[in-house]
């Protein structure tokens, strides 16, 4: 189905807007995701309070919040089921945005 989308672009073929009734996630999936999001948030806060984890706090937090980010984008925003166009439209800018954050904090000497 994804390849059909990609093909749509390549051939410039016309696809009617509603021709793609995606098999999107069901309401049950949405609730499960919400639960996971809640749990991850709880974990994050817990990690924050556990002294012993202080040295690895930042990597753990990045991992956890990155997972939350990905879950919302993939399921709630439907990107997992959408075609390459939308994925590119989001991931391209996201890449540049993250790169710029990293570059700036590196320039300010927080990385090296």
């Amino acid at each position, binding site marked *: 189905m994804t390849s059909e989308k990609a093909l749509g672009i390549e051939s410039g073929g016309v696809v009617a807007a509603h021709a793609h009734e995606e098999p999107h996630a069901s309401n049950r999936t949405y609730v499960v995701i*919400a639960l996971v999001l809640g749990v991850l948030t709880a974990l994050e806060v817990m990690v924050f309070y556990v002294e012993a984890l202080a040295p690895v706090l930042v990597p753990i937090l990045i991992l956890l919040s990155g997972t939350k980010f990905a879950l919302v984008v993939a399921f709630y925003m439907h990107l997992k089921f959408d075609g390459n166009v*939308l994925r590119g439209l*989001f991931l391209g800018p996201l890449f540049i945005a993250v790169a710029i954050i990293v570059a700036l904090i590196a320039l300010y000497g927080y990385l090296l």
Partner: protein
Amino acid sequence: MERTNTGVPNEKMLMWAFIGSECMLFASLIATYLTYRGRSLVGPYPEDLLNIPFITVTTFVLLMSSLTMVLALSAVQRGDARGSRVFLLLTAVLGIIFVGGQAIEFSHFAGEGLGLSRNLFSSTFFLTTGFHGAHVTVGVIWLLSLWVLTMRGRLGPESSVKVEVAGLYWHFVDVVWIVLFTVIYLMSGS
């Protein structure tokens, strides 16, 4: 419905492109916040003021509003009028609670002497979270407008793309908060 080359409705593509642009907007804010971390010359400092438990609650509220948002969309797509109404309103209300929480937080900070121009922390904190709060507020107004449409029965499955687009915006704002919550609040100590 117009035909499009990609099969994606124009409105939806517009919103995704806009979200791409917003990534850069928030990236600039976050980068500024991070580069200015620990550079305040006078207090109060983040660790003196940030109330993690309180913000955890409002964060949770915002996360759950994303759930109600997808449920609203799915209701609209199914033509479930009652579900649409309930979930749209619920999402907006959760958004209002979040913004209310932010207002409480801001006024608490102000009471502690952390005005906008107090130090670098306050400058970056208020602008970053303020930009986000403004986005949530716009989202709330948008959702309430859609809710009024459903109340008048003018939001059937045929115009579900309107809700879908609003939902994309709403989730994106939520996603930004996921990052801000981590960066501003949970990484404040390190």
